[in-house]
């Protein structure tokens, strides 16, 4: 029998990669999308004819129940979120409603409609915020530092509690930053790759950034969706960190990105205090050893490979 999957947030970076992966594996793929006068299906246009879109919202319980009824999903991947940390200071209430309470609504829909379905929750390294230890693993205490992080901590715990109390096959993937050419332009990595391409092509002169010394553990989104899928193939649900185990600065990202097109980042990068966050997370570095040990999962794309992939994609797109 063909397996069926429901992906919330299918129009996002991770949703689009996951949809491709599941289609390759022969799944029937359903995607939850918000109704909008302008469709946001840019990232899934190439697979639109092979997937089924269901209209719904994480803030509307009824629509989630209907999505479960329509899809009869064997696997549910909750990737829907207001996913930009910076904006969560501007829209803290709706961030909590979508990223936090939305998880409860979706779990309730699963519990009522198809309790044997397997559930993946996209948790995040932002839950560690003001880190209690380096590197962070599945046992590191949480200390979020943004409304986004707080909402995600809630989503993590409610997933855990529904697993423990109702016996749902529900798992958290604690994903560290994961990037790709499909990353939104509001994220620093994509902002850099896009602007490097524009500068190289003569459309821009400078790149304005916040704190260049911010460090992150950056992986390739394509690798991370593979881990999501592996998690749901386990007999026993559990929580896993997905990370590269390496940390790099925004400065290094700039260096490699500019060097890839033969430029020096020092000539183009300008520091702008506007982009410094109210509370900056400290050293986020993930320990992915549990995922490696139990799921056989490892990242395949290096940091340099990732940066160059992103710059190449923006060069190609903008030179068309």
């Amino acid at each position: 029998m063909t397996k069926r999957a429901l992906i919330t947030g299918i129009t996002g970076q991770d949703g689009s990669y996951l949809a491709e992966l599941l289609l390759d594996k022969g799944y029937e793929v359903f995607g939850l999308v918000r109704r909008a006068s302008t469709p946001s299906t840019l990232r899934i246009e190439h697979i639109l004819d092979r997937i089924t879109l269901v209209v719904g919202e994480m803030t509307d319980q009824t629509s989630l129940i209907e999505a479960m009824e329509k899809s009869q999903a064997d696997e549910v991947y909750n990737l829907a979120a207001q996913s930009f940390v910076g904006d969560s200071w501007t829209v803290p209430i709706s961030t909590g409603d979508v990223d936090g309470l939305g998880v409860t609504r979706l779990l309730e829909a699963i519990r009522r409609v198809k309790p044997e379905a397997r559930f993946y929750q996209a948790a995040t390294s932002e839950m560690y915020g003001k880190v209690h230890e380096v590197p962070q693993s599945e046992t590191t205490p949480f200390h979020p530092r943004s409304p986004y992080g707080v909402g995600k901590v809630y989503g993590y715990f409610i997933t855990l509690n529904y697993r423990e109390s109702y016996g749902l096959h529900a798992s958290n993937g604690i994903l560290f930053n994961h990037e790709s050419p499909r990353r939104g332009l509001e994220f620093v990595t994509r902002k850099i790759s896009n602007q490097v391409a524009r500068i190289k092509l003569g459309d821009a002169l400078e790149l304005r950034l916040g704190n260049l010394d911010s460090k992150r553990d950056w992986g390739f989104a394509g690798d991370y969706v593979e881990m999501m899928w592996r998690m749901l193939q386990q007999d026993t649900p559990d929580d896993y960190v997905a990370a590269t185990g390496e940390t790099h600065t925004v400065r290094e990202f700039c260096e490699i990105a500019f060097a890839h097109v033969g430029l020096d980042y020092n000539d183009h990068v300008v520091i702008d205090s506007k982009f410094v966050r109210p509370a900056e997370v400290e050293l986020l570095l993930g320990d992915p050893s549990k995922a490696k040990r139990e799921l056989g999962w490892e990242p395949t794309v290096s940091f340099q490979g990732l940066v160059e992939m992103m710059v190449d994609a923006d060069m190609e797109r903008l030179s068309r």
Partner: protein
Amino acid sequence: MPKRALITGVAGQDGTYLTDLLVEKGYQVFGVLGPAPGAFVDRIAGWGEAFVGVQADMTDTQSLRDVVAEAQPDEVYNFAGISSVGQSWDQAELVADVNGVGVVRLLEAIRDLAPKACFCQASSAEVFGRPSQVPQNEDTPIRPVSPYGDSKAYGHFVTTTYREAHGMRASNAILYNHESPLRPVSFVTAKIADGVARIKLGLAFELQLGNLDARRDWGYAGDYVRAMWLIQQADEPGDFVISTGVAHSIRHVCAFAFAHVGLDYQDYVRVNRDFFRPAEAEVLVGDSAKARDTLGWEPSVGFDELVGMMVDAYLKRLA
């Protein structure tokens, strides 16, 4: 000028005790009454002009902004919330909206309209649910086991986040169970006190309870609101465990309560598995050394005195 305080959830047990305390200290108190202030209304007359009842809802942002603007508070105490762990399994969404996102709404209102106010969030020992250490202190990792605990973890972390990121004077009082004659019978201690009183008065013959071996660190609500007032007077905001440091089982509460009226609990208590929770928080015992050292706080009412006080109150109410 008298100090001004805004208390959400004022009609509950803690709100009532805190209003008593603040009125005695000369505060002008604005209390958010909520939809069903019930017996609380009878007490309002006693406070006279020192108390002003206002209406708002933790799920309605504008209503919270309006009461913050009206009260212009020096101190805000957030006691509003759905306080039943059991109910949280059936209304998980609502509980998170009120107890979790509600705190975001309130903090945003304060940040905008009364940014200098001190804020005290009634956090809960339930955020520790399955604790990695016993007793728990302010550094114990948060790890709830119920939708209620999850929602309180939400409110707790929002409070620390707004303190750390926006420099607000926002504190968490991590309250362990605190009881009093004002506890409604939906809480186990009050249910026991009520049951004992009924049995003693010949109005009932048995008392049905859930897990008798669940253990909690039970203190007196009057002591705990005093701790929260002290938190607001501290030089620095922070997180404070408020607890007695001693855990007693529900069985122990029964033994004391029945003995208080000369009965043996074993003759009357029956275990009913329907009252078991899907997940039970484990040994929750708080280490309140920080509150004792930095605030000079300590509980004044002991466990046996508390149980006796509650049984007496129910006897009086029913007689």
